[in-house]
């Protein structure tokens, strides 16, 4: 077996391991931190993820990097990537039903996210409650907001709501606003 063949097998093994780490949940929040990948795959973990990404691309999926501070990271920022969370998401938006949520809950979530984004990312919880109760009963609004916080779509800090980790990972916020305004 020559060196090139050996290196190919090693890479294949690493890509398989990366796929297992990313597909199966290891923590409460899905995804794996950069340093965990580095520990499991070695220093060249960014290259391994790039290979995995090209495989996933054919299936309509991609590896996405989410920073803890907020915002998405471009590939190449290796140092920062160690602190970031890597997760696999669907590349194209889902048109068919892909959630068991009631339409009312999705509508409230959509309005909540758009409302928070338009207020520069942070807004008092009471303001969101009042805004949503224009169309839904207050009890349902309270219940829905608590659920969004639990699911990670919205975060709460000192009676203020902000965009949660899950929205940062799953929702194309620009597209959402464009669709609402169009």
């Amino acid at each position, binding site marked *: 077996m020559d060196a090139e063949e050996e290196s190919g097998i090693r890479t294949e093994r690493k890509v398989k391991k990366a796929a297992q780490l990313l597909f199966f949940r290891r923590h409460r929040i899905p995804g794996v931190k950069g340093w965990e990948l580095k520990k499991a795959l070695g220093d060249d973990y960014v290259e391994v993820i790039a290979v995995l990404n090209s495989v996933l691309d054919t299936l309509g999926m991609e590896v996405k990097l989410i920073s803890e501070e907020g915002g998405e990271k471009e590939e190449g920022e290796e140092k920062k990537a160690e602190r970031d969370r890597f997760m696999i998401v669907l590349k194209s938006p889902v048109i068919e039903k892909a959630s068991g949520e009631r339409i009312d809950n999705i509508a409230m979530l959509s309005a909540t996210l758009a409302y928070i984004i338009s207020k520069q990312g942070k807004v008092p919880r009471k303001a969101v409650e009042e805004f949503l109760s224009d169309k839904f009963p207050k009890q349902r609004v309270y219940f829905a907001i608590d659920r969004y916080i639990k699911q990670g779509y919205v975060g709460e800090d000192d009676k203020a709501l902000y965009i949660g980790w899950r929205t940062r990972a*799953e929702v194309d916020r620009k597209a959402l606003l464009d669709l609402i305004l169009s």
Partner: protein
Amino acid sequence: MKFYKVPGKQMKFDELFRLLNFCKTIQTEGTDPFDLDVKKFLETLKQYHKKWKSLDDLLLDAEAIAELAKIIELQGKWIKDRSSSFYIDPVLLELKLKMLEPQQLATAFFKSWHPIISLDRITPQRLTEGLAYWDALLPLGERIDEFPFPSAVKSTFDIEDLIELNILSKTEFDDSIRAVLNELEVRGRIEYHDFIYGASFETSVKKAYLTSYLVNEGKAELDINPLEEEVFISPSYYTNVNAQAHHTQSRSIPISLSYEDWLQWMQKRNQE
């Protein structure tokens, strides 16, 4: 500019205090930070700079510079926010959101949604770890400190507390209980949820609370059928007639009420 050439000391302070207050207003009220002319502010400070003598003068000068720095920082943030692709006039968006139907909002969400793909799987290794944990776990009796009883007495209000705090009057509470009892007497033996649930969830919860007093005081009785998962409530005289000599031991019965359950009940009732 000539205005600043020969200022008296009081005039200097007035001018600076006015500018400092303006800086603070921008920070607290969130008004447009570009309302402050930074260049003019710096020129004003420059005019006064050579005239500062005392420590207080210098402190005031330092404070002015610090406030100005905060405003410049706000101006930077303001530009960043508005130049970002996410900036949209909040009033316009709010109006749009109010106009859209829930269906349209949900469609917008789905079209911008890229769900995370993540699976949960219990591996044989994890099962072994779980078993090892189980084996190492002491019996509950030996770990009772891990599950302290909640200090419920200290943290809850009973009816006497509410009356004492003038939140509720005794007469008002008695009238409410009597109204619920009268209704129960009229309706006779009835399924508990059919009795409790009404037009709104709020009144349903209130009625359940009042009913618990009726049961506590022995004015109403609950009849539970665990197999069918049914709970019936009836006024006490009704039960006494049917089972006069039947003595049962009193016990606490938790019956859950939830908003979803109430919604289902409403839907069922509307279908009927």
